[in-house]
């Protein structure tokens, strides 16, 4: 697989605000990558630099090995899909899709057949004479998608393309974008703040925060092995405990709470002592039954008592907010378990924190 886009030491400043800091990244041919991060993290700025709408303050952008910093957007032949669809409201669907080909002076008959072919691809053949405002949001974004594909772009850039749509349409269209990508084998760079979207469709996820790349990995790795407290917090839900690491125990002097952790869990922190932050996913915390014996392989030091504050029913899982050692944590149990235990608010129950399910990050705070 060849490298399609390479970003080398890219920095982008707007006046005094640094939007992107010293970024390095490779995107491979035919790959589907997602930029994921909160608003203002620099993901859209990065996409706009690749598109050619912004010029990097420092650094080099390469496309197939050639530096394209100064290539104007019109010559890059990268398709772009915008959050607001950005369809031309005064042109029919057919004229919208054919616009890029018209700009390239392609004969009308060829434009027509290409437009028909694309409309078929997304099942909108019967809508071609309509104007964009007459279509639903989902249909409009489909039109925007094929409009950007009409000129056989080498790369497709999508800037939060589904943010303006309803939840259900979003899921459908997401699958459709993925299908089109696989079918055409085109490189796609996708920007979103929706972690579910990023994890479900991309080959690799680039998590960004404050202009920095926090982690580049496959979706499952991002979730299972976040490399920083930010990623653990932003992708999925995590509980955090701050403390001092001594051998395999993390102690918080203020709250008096301590947890034993395994060596595997400490890998990310890469140190044997000092200030660390532990994180653990809500579903990894085990709710212990009263009266029953604790399994022999449980590390008794990691059993803590907490008071249930709020119980929220979320469908398959039940989420509890628990007051534990002076902080509020989130514990998820299955609906079946919830039925069996019949826990209710203000109950005090024991929880087990498996030492191997922690992840430790160096330092305190985010």
């Amino acid at each position: 697989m060849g490298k399609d886009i390479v970003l080398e030491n890219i920095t982008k400043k707007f006046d005094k605000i640094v939007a992107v800091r010293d970024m390095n990244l490779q995107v491979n041919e035919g790959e589907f990558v997602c930029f994921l991060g909160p608003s203002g993290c620099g993901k859209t700025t990065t996409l706009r630099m690749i598109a050619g709408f912004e010029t990097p303050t420092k650094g080099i952008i390469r496309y197939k090995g050639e530096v394209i910093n100064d290539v104007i957007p019109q010559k890059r032949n990268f398709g772009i899909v915008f959050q607001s669809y950005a369809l031309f409201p005064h042109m029919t669907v057919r004229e919208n899709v054919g616009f890029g080909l018209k700009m390239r002076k392609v004969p009308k008959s060829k434009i027509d057949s290409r437009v028909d072919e694309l409309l078929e691809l997304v099942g909108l053949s019967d809508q071609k004479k309509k104007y964009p405002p007459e279509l639903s949001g989902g249909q409009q974004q489909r039109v925007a998608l094929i409009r950007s594909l009409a000129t056989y772009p080498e790369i497709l850039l999508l800037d939060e393309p589904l943010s303006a749509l309803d939840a259900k349409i979003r899921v459908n269209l997401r699958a459709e974008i993925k299908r089109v990508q696989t079918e055409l084998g085109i490189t796609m760079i996708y920007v979103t703040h929706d972690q579910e979207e990023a994890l479900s469709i991309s080959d690799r996820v680039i998590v960004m925060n404050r202009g920095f790349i926090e982690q580049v990995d496959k979706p499952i790795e991002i979730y299972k092995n976040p490399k920083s407290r930010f990623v653990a917090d932003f992708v999925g839900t995590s509980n955090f405990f701050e403390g001092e690491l001594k051998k395999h125990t993390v102690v918080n002097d203020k709250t008096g709470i301590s947890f034993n952790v395994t060596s595997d869990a400490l890998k990310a922190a890469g140190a044997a002592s000092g200030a660390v932050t532990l994180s653990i996913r809500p579903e990894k915390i085990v709710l212990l039954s009263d009266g029953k014996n604790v399994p022999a392989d449980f590390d008794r030091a990691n059993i803590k008592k907490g008071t249930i504050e709020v119980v929220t029913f979320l469908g398959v899982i039940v989420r509890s907010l628990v007051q534990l050692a002076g902080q509020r944590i989130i514990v998820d149990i299955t609906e079946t378990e919830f039925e069996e235990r019949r826990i209710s608010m203000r109950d005090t129950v024991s929880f087990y924190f498996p030492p191997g399910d922690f992840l430790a990050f160096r330092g305190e705070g985010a």
Partner: protein
Amino acid sequence: MMNRQEELTIKPVRTVLPDQVVAYIIISVIFVYFLFFLLYPLVQILKTSITTESGFTLSNYVEYFGKARIRRSLWNSFYVASITTIITTIMAFLVAYAITRTTIRGKSFHKSVSSLPLMAPSVVQALALISLFGRNGLITNWFSGKWDIYGAPGIIISEIFYCFPYALLILITTLSAVDTRMNEAAESLGAGPLTVFSRITIPSARYGIFSAAALAFNLTITDFGNPIVIGGNYNVLATEIYTQVEGMQRFDLGATISVILLVPAVLAFVLNNYFTKRNYSLISGAARPFLRPSSISKKALFSTISFIISGAIVIIFLTILWTSIVDVWGGRSGESKQILKWLTSFSTRHYNFAHRGRSISVVWTSFWISIIVALFGGWLTLITGYIVEKRKPHGNQLLYLITVLPAAIPGLVLGLGYILAFVKVNWLYYKASIIILNIIVANFTLGMLSTMTNMKNIDKSVDEAATSLGADLPKSFFQVIFPLSRISFWNNVLFFFERSMVTISAVIFLVSPKTQLASITIIHLIDDGYVESACAMSTIVVGIVVIVHVIFLSIFKKKGIKIM
């Protein structure tokens, strides 16, 4: 799978110049235009006022403040402008209140009548006053009046009706945007109607009121048409500039008075801008609840006020029309008391301008100059608005500031600056070209601001989508932005046309016997004592503007349905 073979038939996009370069070229052209036709003339004014052949001097200023007669013009201007401002603001507030907060009938009548003065040269008010209250006026004759309308009272009354529609527009916008639920909350807490009015309604609209007042002050102090016609011996700054330059050939003193006039004019403009911004920040987007039916006494009060004011405006225009078609206004000798008789002996002779030493061809000149101004002005504001708002090249903030400046400069001052600056430029001096360039600059601000509003409503991504699909700046502009800005564009074309047809102060120094305009001819006709013919010319100008306006509006209506 797609047939990748076809890809070969697609040629890459051909672009002549990168968009940024195109944007810089356009921005530079506009910059140069404003440099030569706004900043340079203003510098010439300042320079003329403080230099003689021997160098720097303040003698002109000493002379201005030394001569009691000339010095009075400053005081007179402030006096007239202050009184006009107070009365106009109160009147406009009452009518705006009637239109937005009561359930009186005839709201659309009041609105359309009050837009009439915007379509007329700022001389018709004074002209109508002369026809009614002048030495041989209808009402003067009727009541054997001995009053003298010439002077401060005449100027003030004319200016009130000239400024009224501008103030009304601001106050209608303000009052219809302020959340009326505040009033209801106050009422529910036990406040009586007068308390609500003085403690809630007026304070919540205060920035709109200040903004309207500042605009009225600016309009009055810079107006030339009305005071020159009805001022008599009562000189204001604007008329004094004209007297010094045209009468005495004292360009230096004219320039000096111009600088003095610039100070209050710019100040009022800055205040107006400031209050407008504050006003918009107060306006809430909250939905307005249904307007409850007003009490009968409230309706009676506000209907009466509104109809008196609208009626006065209608009378102004009817008087102009009537005066122009009556054989002899005031009747032939001995007929002055038989009012009905002379009011019904009609004649078209006042439309024969050749008998008055003038020519009907000025209408044609005004018309074609206005069409050129309209098209150039429309395109220029659209292109500038597009580049500044959507392409944001470096320096666009500076350009924006410069394009806002003309609204602060009195037309008369800019016109004098043109004469001082371009006296040696053959293709400009006393040619149509200088008039066209001047009217576009003088009215650029409002056209530009409305374009910017329109541009802000067009999603930036639409422009970028066109770019990413291969359209360069001109293609994106003509194929995407222009079709989406049609209404705003034609609105601006109409605006420039109307301003060009009715402007007096901006062009009074720029016309010549060869290139004469209809609006200026009105002034000359009055000067020569032909009030009826001046009314005839006014009727023609207003008629053309109203007809063009109506044609545009009906086309908008048809197109509006198609576009939405």
